[in-house]
């Protein structure tokens, strides 16, 4: 197998010891994701997709098996080393946005640079944060606080934050779960644009519509992979948005 995989999971297991019953959330997942891929991990609730995502995101450690991220074996690292990897190599986007309230968009975006062990001058922190806001199309809202932004705008701020330390891997956990259809497509458009620029994206979702914007679909059931295939009829967000707008205008015209 090619050794340049961004993510390489080998027989990954996760067991939670809760009370008397052991919950075997992930039961031997092997998966390889190459640079530039855009993968949707799908499954119903309880399928183990969130647990798998937490392990890929270095928030949690596998009970058994090996996880190589950029060739580094994660299972042997301590808490601080995991924190550094989350800071340097991974960008997170959450369902609930997870922005700091009463903190401006640009400060939210700049926050991960505070924990960067390469010292970044504060003027450069803000320069980078503003550049990332520009990428997601929110340059004009840099000084707004999260409660002054719409859900879609908040998610864009979260994406900008995920990009600020220039990671090679973007992880998104139900990024459109709290958004309406049009905003969801807009967010998927942002992801597609970033993917086109070379960033590897892994996204958890339970919506088939959303998964169709990715390039590859992995379906989990009971902690095991049941399907792993390329997306056949891939949707392109810009086209979809155009159609949606035309449809909306048609309604108004009618």
């Amino acid at each position, binding site marked *: 197998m090619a050794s340049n995989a961004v993510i390489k999971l080998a027989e990954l297991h996760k067991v939670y010891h809760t009370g008397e019953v052991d919950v075997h959330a992930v039961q031997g997942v092997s998966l390889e994701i190459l640079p530039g891929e855009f993968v949707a991990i799908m499954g119903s609730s309880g399928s183990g997709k969130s647990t798998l995502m937490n392990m890929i995101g270095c928030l949690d450690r596998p009970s058994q098996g090996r996880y190589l991220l950029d060739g580094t074996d994660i299972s042997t690292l301590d808490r601080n080393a995991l924190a550094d990897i989350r800071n340097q190599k991974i960008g997170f986007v959450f369902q609930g946005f997870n922005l700091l309230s009463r903190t401006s968009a640009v400060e939210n975006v700049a926050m991960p640079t505070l*924990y960067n062990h390469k010292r970044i001058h504060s003027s450069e922190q803000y320069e980078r944060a503003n550049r990332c806001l520009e990428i997601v199309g929110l340059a004009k809202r840099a000084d707004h606080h999260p409660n002054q932004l719409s859900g879609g705008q908040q998610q864009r701020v979260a994406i900008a934050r995920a990009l600020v330390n220039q990671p090679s891997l973007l992880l998104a956990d139900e990024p459109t779960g709290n958004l309406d259809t049009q905003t969801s497509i807009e967010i998927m458009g942002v992801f597609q644009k970033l993917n086109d620029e070379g960033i590897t994206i892994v996204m958890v979702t339970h919506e088939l519509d959303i998964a169709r914007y990715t390039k590859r679909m992995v379906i989990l059931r009971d902690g095991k992979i049941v399907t792993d295939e390329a997306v056949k009829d891939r949707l392109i967000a810009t086209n979809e948005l155009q159609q949606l707008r035309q449809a909306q205008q048609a309604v108004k015209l009618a």
Partner: protein
Amino acid sequence: MRIFATIKIALRALRRNKMRSLLTMLGIIIGVLSVILAVSLTGGATKQVEDQVSSLGESVITVFSGNFTQGGMRGGWGSAPTLTIDDAKAIQAEIPNVVGISPEVRDREQVLANGLNWNTQVMGESPDYPQIRNWPMATGSVFSDQDVRSLAKVAIIGKTVVDELFPNENPLGETIRIRNLPFKVVGVLAPKGFNLFGQDQDDIVVVPYTSHMHRITARTFANDILVEAANDKVIDKVQNDITDLLLARHKSKEQDFTVRNQVELMQAVTATSRAMGFLLAGVAAVSLVVGGIGIMNIMLVSVTERTREIGIRMAVGARAGDILVQFLIEAVTLSIIGGSIGIALGLTLALLVGHLRNMPTVIPVLWIAVAFISSGFIGIVSGFYPAWKASKLDPIDALRYE
């Protein structure tokens, strides 16, 4: 992780809950305020006492004559006729490092002048008296050794006597009558105010001790002898020499006199202020501990409230140490701001009270430093547990926390 960025985060977090931050700081503010206030005011009072003690003359030794005991009744110091003028002369002649000496004879007399009269303390002294008592002349000058030898009828008088007998008049060159004898006023002493025991020191008439003993009271002994040593380093030596000399001169088995110095009095005063200092330190410690508990309490609440924030920060790469430092700095910032406010308020109040009550206040530099450092220390101690608790959170649990 940069310390300045962390301080900025901490300040922002504190600004968000202004009222809560203020109430949290209140414990520290009150503790530090009361310490600074108390120290400034008692420091001022102590300084006042010390000034008064030194105004008596810092290196002055007083030799009192012994107790007079008759038929089981014991008089006070200076009641027995054991100290003579010859004793005083011997001290001056034989003991080194004596720079001034004055045998004292005390009496209360009715003094007349100008058609007015006034009952006052009439002292017989040597010309060294103003120098020994560290007491300058306001006008005129002290009588001379020649005046002492010739039993001259001259006097120097205090401010109170001037006010009572010579209102709106220059007393210099005027005559006062003591037991119907005319004494010419040759000098006026500068006002000295009240002494430690509340006596008016300016209510005094000083005449040559010879004139006092032969013309006014017909006494043959001195109540006590004031001796001024060259400096306060030789004072103990001089004191011992006086004791030895007088024991030899009096040839008595029992010591029939008592020797005291101002340094002893000064030590008593400093001992009092030191005891006061310990008491204050105790009060300060208690109030700072209470303030610290308040900070710990609020920091624990804050950690719980901000669990999600901690989770977010950890998810984007904050190490446990970063979180620990963030909350620790928040606690220290709280306590140091509280301490600074306490210091500022305490000093302001002390100066205000001092101004209103016309009391001297001392700016307690040492205590300000102690208050500042200990409030920082309290912040570290009380902030550590909540900060440690925050840093031990699991990022996944923290992110899911509602």
